[in-house]
């Protein structure tokens, strides 16, 4: 079954002078963050209920950065998310039902049970289904943008953007280096979101890189680089907003490095006892922090925020209920064919 096209939420860009518009953006941002957190939580529960084959990875603590990336894109852009990007995926247009279906391995999911969990995507929407190999998606985004340039679609000062995610660990993959360099050589409107969550699985930054700050690499690649506090929702919106705007204007590739902490194990299976209380005490939870800020600023009340959570849980429950009634893949009905053109002995006309 071909993935069904789905409607992307339309995201108007905020006018800096218009506080109502900025508040609207901030609220929608928090909404995606909450939806992602609630969905991640529910996936963990479904795993415990044995309804999810395979692993569950969450973006706990990284929602502000990820959601900002996804919501600052628009239809026609390309997004290559990774395992911590539930928030960004949703904000870019992934449907809740497809998340649930794919995690359950349902026949109705975009991956038809042939692939699962975070490897889902919808190429028609520009949402790339990641392969596990860290760094591998970035050159694919480069290729997509090059294709658009060949096709005459990369002209003007409001370009489409290709966004890719990477972590502090993945930043050291050879593939990442090759891809980022190629994006710079081609001067493409690419935005690389680097979520520095201090740890790659269990390995801390001091064993994964030796430069002072990952953003220092931006200049080395010929990227414009900027940093933000990944636990500060407004800072994430501002930094990524600026990077995306620069890319759209044709200023070439952009790197945004967020400092934050993974507030969960690597996957659900990982108790992450290597993360010390001292380290934990240095980082807040972006959702709590943003909720407090918006309350203090009088943008949202306690009840408003409670409603965001309730709405999220209601939407998710409906999707889970629906997915549970849907069929699993049937080995007997599989084509078991890996080729788009299985018969190469027929004469090409």
């Amino acid at each position, binding site marked *: 079954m071909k993935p069904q096209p789905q409607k992307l939420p339309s995201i108007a860009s905020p006018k800096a002078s218009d506080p109502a518009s900025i508040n609207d953006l901030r609220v929608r941002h928090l909404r995606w963050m909450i939806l992602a957190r609630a969905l991640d939580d529910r996936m963990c529960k479904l795993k415990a209920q044995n309804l999810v084959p395979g692993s569950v990875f969450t973006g706990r603590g990284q929602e502000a950065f990820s959601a900002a990336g996804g919501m600052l894109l628009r239809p026609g852009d390309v997004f290559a998310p990774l395992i911590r990007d539930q928030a960004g995926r949703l904000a870019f247009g992934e449907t809740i039902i497809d998340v649930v279906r794919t995690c359950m391995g349902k026949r109705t999911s975009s991956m038809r049970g042939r692939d699962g969990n975070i490897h889902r995507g919808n190429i028609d929407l520009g949402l790339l289904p990641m392969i596990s190999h860290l760094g591998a998606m970035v*050159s694919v985004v480069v290729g997509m943008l090059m294709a658009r340039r060949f096709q005459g679609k990369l002209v003007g000062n409001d370009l489409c953007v290709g966004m890719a995610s990477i972590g502090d660990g993945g930043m050291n993959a050879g593939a990442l280096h*090759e891809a980022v360099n190629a994006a710079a050589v081609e001067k493409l409107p690419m935005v690389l979101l680097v979520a520095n969550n201090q740890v790659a699985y269990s390995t801390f930054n001091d064993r994964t890189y030796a430069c002072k700050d990952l953003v220092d690499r931006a200049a080395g690649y010929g990227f414009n680089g900027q940093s933000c506090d990944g636990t500060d929702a407004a800072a994430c919106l501002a930094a990524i907003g600026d990077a995306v705007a620069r890319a759209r204007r044709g200023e070439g590739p952009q790197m945004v490095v967020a400092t934050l902490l993974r507030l969960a194990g690597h996957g659900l299976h990982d108790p992450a006892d290597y993360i010390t209380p001292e380290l934990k005490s240095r980082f807040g939870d972006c959702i709590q922090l943003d909720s407090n800020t918006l309350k203090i600023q009088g943008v949202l009340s306690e009840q408003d925020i409670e409603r965001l959570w309730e709405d999220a849980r209601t939407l998710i429950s409906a999707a889970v209920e629906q997915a549970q009634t849907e069929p699993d893949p049937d080995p007997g009905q599989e084509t078991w064919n890996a080729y788009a*053109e299985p018969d190469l002995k027929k004469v090409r006309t």
Partner: protein
Amino acid sequence: MTIAYLEAIRLALGESLDEDPRVFLYGQDIAGAFGGAFKVTKGIAERHQDRVLNSPISEDAMAGIAIGAALEGMRPVIEFQFADFATIAFNQFVNHAATIHWRTGRSCPFVARLPVGGTPGGGPFHSQMPESWLSHHPGLVVVAPATVADAYFMLKDAIACLDPVMFCEHKYLYYHLKADFDKTRAEHLPLGAAAIRRGGGDCTIISYSGMVHEALRAAEILSRDHDLDCEVIDLRCLRPLDTETILNSVARTGRVVVATESWPFGGVAAEVLALVSSEGFSHLDAPPRRLCALDTPIPFHPDLFAAHHPDAERIADVVLETMAF
């Protein structure tokens, strides 16, 4: 008109660029007047400057870029300077390109041009044959043209193919193989069909790429000196494999020798022998045999190199052993 194998590749690339705006070439040193390490793109690069681009030395990114561009509707052709360097792109080929159709239902049409095979003095890192490890992965099409006409037609068909095609072009044949070529008259087989290069009833010699010419020479020797009539099959496409042509031939001859320039362990030759043994067992009058390169890295010195891979005389010897069984 007589042209070399390499010129046939250049012709196919030039025509593809002329005819199809979706086609672009990307690889190291291929652009401009330079025209590539082997000069395959010389002339056409200058004609299509906007669609013949030099890449950094980034084989993983080259393959990833081909995947991305293919998903956006282009028909990328990426050139590796030597097939040996395709190991760097292994991940993008086998984990990414090969899995996209299965995982998503989308096709991922691009061609990776891989200059394969040994030449005297090439040594361990400029001589290898990657077809066995590429063929192992479902989702990749792996082809290895042995003739001038195939170099042309198979490349055009590879560019038209909806799947990622690993196009193994033999470096020794680039300039050493020349043939009269008229594309309106030359034989144009489908991409996935094996070719019977010489008919015969006594023994089937199966080969592909540069080794086809040694197999043909072996058949000549056996005919001249031993009055044996060997059938020579050029597999052309290694994945998917034309099992029908192989099994039909073995049914006629009852004897089979597979000759390749690759290593024996887990290779295409082993696959063909497994096929013949399991599905053609009742036709066999003698154990099926293979003759591959020696099981070491590829040597540098021309004398060592000559001893390392099969030649016509050694193929003929194995056929005689098979006949004597």
